């Protein structure tokens, strides 16, 4: 048991944050060790986690929902095996004191501070159109500075992860309001997932199962002991999480919003129907392209794009 532990590498999608909580808890609580694994969480890099996974630098990675669909459509056999959050954590945010924005249709003609994905365009215009607007707005690609730009009024609205940026705005007492995607015709999705390459996972089912189960155990512990989990995360990241209040509040939001464990007790599992819905949405909006950058002509069959096969036996 002590000797030959299998080494597994895990790639992150962003700087360490509460979405990664279960991964760190599992390490600290020895769940990986129990499962015979030696898990190395790779440092966050400019390179997307899916690229690292696709090229074997890491066996597992945090996949964003849209990123995954894009890549899989292009022929990279990524496969999510665990949903970190059970519902969409993203939302549209804007300055709460703005009298001219009451509903998504009011966003027409406004300036959007974006991050540079094709998905955002479809997302925002769907939301505006879903509210009866024209879906026309100006995009300024900002990346990391979107929230400062919003705070200083240089852009009118942007997107955020409500359990991170949203929580921070609340902590700072910023009068911020938001629109939820699902309210305006965008399907709900598992925003953040853990996955690997399907062929690799199928070739290494035991390792995969061991890893996914350990992670699940970590996330379950975090959902049940958010304060303690927050401490673990802060400690494990060597002072990089320099805003402990944010971590705690974010954990509270993840628990309160039933993101880590859904109201019905679901943890990690993905509903194929929801995946298909999201896949169809992306296909219908022309966001799925093949390996040569050409629009997919035929609607893919999304079943089998994700799996729940490596989760612990559901009770």
């Amino acid at each position: 048991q002590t000797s030959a532990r299998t080494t597994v590498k895990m790639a992150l999608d962003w700087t360490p944050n509460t979405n990664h909580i279960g991964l760190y808890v599992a390490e600290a609580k020895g769940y990986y060790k129990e499962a015979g694994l030696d898990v190395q969480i790779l440092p966050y890099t400019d390179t997307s986690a899916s690229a690292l996974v696709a090229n074997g630098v890491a066996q597992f990675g945090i996949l964003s929902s849209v990123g995954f669909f894009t890549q899989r459509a292009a022929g990279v056999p990524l496969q999510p095996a665990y949903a970190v959050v059970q519902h969409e954590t993203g939302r549209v945010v804007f300055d709460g004191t703005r009298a001219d924005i009451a509903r998504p249709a009011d966003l027409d003609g406004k300036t959007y501070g974006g991050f540079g994905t094709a998905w955002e365009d479809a997302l925002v215009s769907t939301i505006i159109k879903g509210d009866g607007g024209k879906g026309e707005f100006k995009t300024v690609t900002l990346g990391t500075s979107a929230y400062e730009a919003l705070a200083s009024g240089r852009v009118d609205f942007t997107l955020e992860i409500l359990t991170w940026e949203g929580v921070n705005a609340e902590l700072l007492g910023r009068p911020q309001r938001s629109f939820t995607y699902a309210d305006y015709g965008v399907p709900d999705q598992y925003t953040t997932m853990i996955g690997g390459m399907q062929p690799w996972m199928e070739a290494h089912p035991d390792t995969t199962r061991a890893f996914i189960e350990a992670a699940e155990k970590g996330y379950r512990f975090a959902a049940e002991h958010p304060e303690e989990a927050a401490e673990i995360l802060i400690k494990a990241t060597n002072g990089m999480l320099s805003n402990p209040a944010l971590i705690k509040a974010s954990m509270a939001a993840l628990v309160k919003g039933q993101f880590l464990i859904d109201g019905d007790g679901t943890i990690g599992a993905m509903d194929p129907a929801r995946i298909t819905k999201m896949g169809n949405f992306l296909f219908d909006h022309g966001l799925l392209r093949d390996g040569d950058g050409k629009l997919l002509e035929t609607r893919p069959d999304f079943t089998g794009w994700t799996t729940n096969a490596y989760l612990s036996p559901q009770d």
Partner: protein
Amino acid sequence: MRLSAVRHQAGRALPALVSVCAILLAWEVYVDLAGVSPTLLPAPSRVVEQGWAARAVLLANAGPTLAATLSGFALSLASAFVFSVAIDFVPVLRRALFPVFVISQTLPLVAIAPLIVLWFGFGLLPKILLVALVTFFPMLVALVDGYESTDDDLQRLLRSMGAGRAGVFRRARLPSALPYFFAGLRISITYAVVAAIFAEYAGAQRGLGIFILNAKNNFRPDLVLAAVFVSSALTLVLFALAAGLQRLSMPWRRA
């Protein structure tokens, strides 16, 4: 005459073509043989193919970047010149300003992007300022060191002729700095396009930087590299112009 001149120029470009082609070929072969996934490193042939397919978008995005590059570089040249003159005339300024300029070169974009957005918005101006900020320092160092390289005999001679500080500067220090200036120019113009691309990361509607960011976030490394090809080509043209200007400006070196 015309034909032979053309042939001569082509001959000068030959080694460059050979080496660049060799690298592209090696890359193509490496990707092929090592079976590198195109999600990581697409083959150059694919980059060219996809870049060509996206040429309209690429061109539309190259425009703003080129505009920022050229205006920013012009501003950089002008201010490097002004500051170098000020430093030359008021030596204490050198000690006072150099640390500030050095610090200005160490500011990472993530740290200042919010401020730039706050102060200047998303127009051309902030890009121009950022390009100027990045390319300014090599020019300044080169000019200041160039002035210092002036032969004392020449300065004494000019003073004996009744030239004042300004006359000595214009007639001896400035021409003496020319070779240094061009070393600085070639260094600095190399950074100008990249600087404009980076500047766009602070917030922009269009530009090669935005194109790259989009391509990357949409998992299109082939388009990322296509944009890099365009930016490299722009840089090479600017660099070649600088080198040509250098040859033209120092005829006495060639005689």
